């Protein structure tokens, strides 16, 4: 894994304010997301994040995380 499980959990949590605020920010540009669309966006982001996290670094399965506690 590229990051520790703890760090991954924290990043997923940090996505919540990002998605919530992103919906408001997009409306400034005339793009209005429904709640369902926002949830779908959140789902895509979480899946993308998980894939990135578990994908082996440099394609050789090595781990890059320095987290130890």
């Amino acid at each position, binding site marked *: 894994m*590229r*990051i*520790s*499980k*703890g*760090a991954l*959990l*924290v990043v997923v*949590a940090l996505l*919540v*304010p990002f998605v*919530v*605020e992103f*919906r*408001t920010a997009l*409306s400034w540009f005339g793009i*209005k997301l429904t*709640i369902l669309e926002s949830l779908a966006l959140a789902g895509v982001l979480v899946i993308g994040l998980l894939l990135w996290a578990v994908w082996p670094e440099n394609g050789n399965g090595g781990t*890059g*995380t*320095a*987290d*130890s*506690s």
Partner: protein
Amino acid sequence: MATSPPTEVTAMRNAYVDQFPDEARVIKAAFWSSFIALAIGGTLGLVQALHRTDVFRFIQSPDYYTVLTAHGVLLAITFTIFFLVGTFTWAVTTSLDRGVVDVRFTWAWYIMMVIGTVLVAIAIFSGFLESAPSVLGSELNADVLFTFYAPLEAHPIFYIGLVLFVVGSWLAGVDWFRTWLAWRSENPDERIPLPTFMVLTTTLFWYICTFGVALSILVFLLPWSLGITESVNPLLTRTLFWYFGHAVVYFWLMPAYMMWYIMLPKFSGGKLFSDPLARVVFVLFLLLSTPLGIHHQYLDPGIAEGYKFIAMTNTMFLLLPSLLTAFTVVASMEHGARQRGGEGYLGWLKALPWRNPIFTGMALAGLMFAAAGFSGMINAGMNINYLVHNTWWVVGHFHLTVGTAVALTFMAASYWFIPQLTGKELWNRSVALGQVLLWFIGMTFMSNAMHRSGLFGMPRRTAEPQYQGFDFEPAVGTVGEINMQVALGGVILTLSLALFLLNMIMTSIGDDSESIPDNTYAGTLSGAEDSPRILDNLKLWTAIAVVLVIIAYTLPLASIIDAGGLFGPGIEGVRLSTWVDPAVIESLGEVIR
């Protein structure tokens, strides 16, 4: 002892309870008092969230104000300050490496605070009774909200309880000063250790700011509620409340700041970046916390715009210590991460101990505090404040400050403190990590919705925010969506609170453990020896703080009293006839004449 490397486990346990068993008992009692207040106050928060949003109602709307008062007082006063006195007692004894002068005195102020809390709670919760009992000649009731200024009037027992609580906190300050003076007589040439310095400067501005609320209660509100005086000047009591009311925000916040300065670097795996900078920050809070309360009264008629402008300027100056803190704490975390092998401009973030609930809780609390700072700047600006004044925006703001920066830091710190105070290992670290993350997520939903609804004018402090024949128009989404977001946030926060309390209870009833880390705090990269000695001159900073208060408040108070009288326009003040037959007073007057 105090600044050894982080969290090593030695063969012989050296937790706080092993070093200071007597003090550990008092601190544990203070923390549990704090947790009980958190449990009750937090649950009432859910009741409010569900009622206001019309998701689930099981109380009558008039009772909402009793719930709101209990929620505010129990969380903003009781939870925070009980936790503070425990933390500060830990900080003083740990950093001075000596116990308090007399632990009986420590128990005395703690018990006084408990009695005060019980009296206040009796007065507030009587509001739920069909017919509240009559005590001291009036019905028990205190639906006056956390801000408790006139014209709302509470039962005298509420004010007496508050007085006991505040006097208890004053005596706690005396205890910390006594302990420091005893240490100083044994170490005359030593610099004040940083944690003790933080405690003493915070205590000093607490003395300065509580003078206002003491005056308000003892001279005006208590005599008024007892019928000794006929009326009060509402603007005067409001101003005296806010003289205290904004500084109390920093009083809650300073233990959280202290944790960020002396514990976060340690859990990051490094040292505090700069001891001198930390001292400067706490001196600035001593100087600037009090002379700015009028920024809560931008819409009050009767206070000239010029005074409000001065308050705004002082408030903006107070951003400086917060920005200094953000720099110092993040620099310390980066140092720690690099010690743990972190590399790159942002890659070091991955090396931080995110699986540690103490670290993660405090770090997320700090992050939320940054957001709170931005919304706070909106509140502090005189012109833009008019847009959000008395709306749900303000509630969203302080749920990020006291509700997250303070509360989440305290909960995360409890995962360190309770094992230190009991000698028992934390029951479940994974549950603890989940708990702090849930708090972060729940507060994101709730405070975001509150801020947004404030922007379209939805009022605070009401059970029925929706007016008849009028629809609010949010810029994004619908009012229904926003209400659902608040309710969802409230439910997640309550779940998080339940997990926290479960962890605390299970830890406390667990078995003794030999693997409790040593009681230490972070060392420094740049220590006290690098800071000028004048920073430790508490008399000088206190004198300047008092002068600033005099400059900021003398003319506004004189103006308010001149316009509205001490006890209201045309009111003489003390009504001598309260317990005496008016005919007797009349005949006495005849005799004198």
